């Protein structure tokens, strides 16, 4: 690991400098994570009186729990749909912003602020728009013949949380796409134009391949975002319902642990989630390393 050619010769000082971070990390990150792993091998009886070691039983139970598998299914749909929606719309906007000569900065300013909106607030806003009785969008949909009700209809509920989650994420993706587009040398596109490629052909042969690292990066980041940060979107809107239709994995950990008080099962779910984050982080870092060596 890198350090400076010349370093200070103190013995105690580096430990002192690291102490606050390591203390917080140890107490609030590593210890709880270790606890989660340990808990995942235990089971409490119905009255919380006796705790026994059950090995991998909590995990095998999870794998045979239709609710958990359903939650996994919901999570995959929610993640991919949110990522796809926010990435595609951000790409379209970034292409447009890269094209306009006048006012790209103004457009950028007007497009990026939703990044600052809390996921919970985003959820509340969209929930209000689609409110079955007074929401303006549900009203419009009714006029078009669709009787919207996300409190009862599973698909409606899923669409609602996807829209709310994607709406907030577009600004982030937009910024990265715009940066990626602006990093493509103008000479490349000019060369392609001289070679007779029209705008559409240029996009697919020149721009899209050069943007693919950014797209991949955003895909990973967006999947992480939808898997974890969208907890607030779900909790502020559907609370996982109706009938588990939007009960994503993170939300289920919370429900089972705090409301269902199934500590062992919740811990096993936490450990599975940690595994998923670790895989995603490794993928992301692998990718960044590759980018650096290019």
């Amino acid at each position, binding site marked *: 690991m890198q350090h400076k050619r010349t370093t200070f010769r103190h013995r105690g*000082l580096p430990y002192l400098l690291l102490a606050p971070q390591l203390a917080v990390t140890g107490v609030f990150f590593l210890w*709880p994570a270790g606890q989660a792993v340990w808990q995942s091998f235990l089971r409490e009886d119905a009255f919380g009186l006796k705790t026994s070691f059950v090995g991998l039983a909590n995990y095998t139970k999870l794998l045979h729990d239709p609710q958990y598998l359903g939650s996994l299914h919901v999570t995959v749909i929610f993640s991919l749909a949110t990522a796809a929606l926010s990435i595609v719309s951000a790409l379209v906007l970034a292409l447009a912003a890269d094209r306009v000569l006048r006012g790209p900065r103004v457009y950028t300013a007007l497009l990026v*602020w939703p990044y600052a909106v809390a996921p919970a*607030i985003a959820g509340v806003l969209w929930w*209000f728009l689609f409110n079955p009785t007074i929401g303006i969008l549900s009203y419009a949909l009714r006029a078009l013949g669709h009787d919207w009700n996300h409190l009862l209809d599973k698909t409606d509920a899923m669409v609602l949380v996807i829209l709310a989650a994607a*709406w907030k994420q577009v600004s982030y993706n937009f910024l990265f796409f715009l940066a990626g587009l602006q990093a493509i040398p103008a000479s490349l596109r000019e060369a392609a134009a001289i070679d007779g490629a029209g705008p559409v052909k240029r996009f697919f042969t020149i721009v899209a391949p050069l943007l693919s690292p950014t797209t991949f990066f955003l895909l990973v*980041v967006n999947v992480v975002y939808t898997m974890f940060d969208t907890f607030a979107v779900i909790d*502020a809107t559907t609370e996982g319902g109706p009938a588990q239709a939007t009960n994503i994995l993170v939300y289920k950990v*919370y429900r089972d642990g705090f409301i269902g008080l199934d500590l062992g099962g919740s811990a096993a779910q936490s450990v599975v989630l940690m595994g998923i984050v670790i895989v995603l982080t490794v993928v992301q870092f692998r990718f960044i390393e590759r980018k650096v060596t290019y």
Partner: protein
Amino acid sequence: MVENRRFLDILAHAVLLLGVLAVAFPVYVAFVASTHPSSDFVSGVVPLLPGSEGLATYREVLAGGGSTQMSVPIALALKNSLIMALAIALGKIAISILSAYAIVWFRFPLRQLAFWAIFITLMLPVEVRIVPTFKVVADLGLLNSYAGLSVPLIASATATFLFRQVFLTIPDELMEAARIDGAGPIRFFRDVLVPLSQTNIAALFVILFIYGWNQYLWPILITTDDSFTTVVAGIKRMADVTDGEPRWNDIMATAMLAMAPPALVVIVMQRLFVKGLVETEK
């Protein structure tokens, strides 16, 4: 611009305008809702033009008492949010810059181990280890306190890596010159490193402030006492009404108040915000 195609230019502007409108629409509706009396929501659909009750609603919400669910004024929740966001942002910056300094400019046993201990926090978002972390905080007696709201969130591998990256670009000779000039590690940190990292600190601050302000799950768990709730977490309590319709004008006014500070930070410090966002992801 490669060629002049009026059609494409117009299309680009049209797409952008549509995007701006789509992005702004939910907030506009929220704003409109916050300016109408709550009786307007009993029947029919949300109005599309602002009403006249705006000032009254905001005054009422800020002072408290209007909502059936929130026992505290939103002004207090805003203050709590501000304290939490500042504590998280400044705390993360402080502990990260110190640990990055130790990792880059010192060689000591266990350096590698410390680096990995910090790195691993990237893989443990709070949502994942929520139950045991809650238990630790409860055991430490930090429920319903500002420390409980902020301290467990201030360990940040991202900020540490950012500072490490920044420090690695500082030429070796600068520290050597400082040592010849009689500056020890603390003086070098104070006189050279911190001033040189100013822009990075500011950019990071913008991102971390938003991160702290927008926390939701954590404040919900840690605060059972409404006087410590934050505005983002509190809005859920306002909307959770078991009997009858929620007071939509109050909820939307609160939403507007909850969005305003971080959105302002992003708009006013757009350049720093973009820098912070792009660099923390490197």
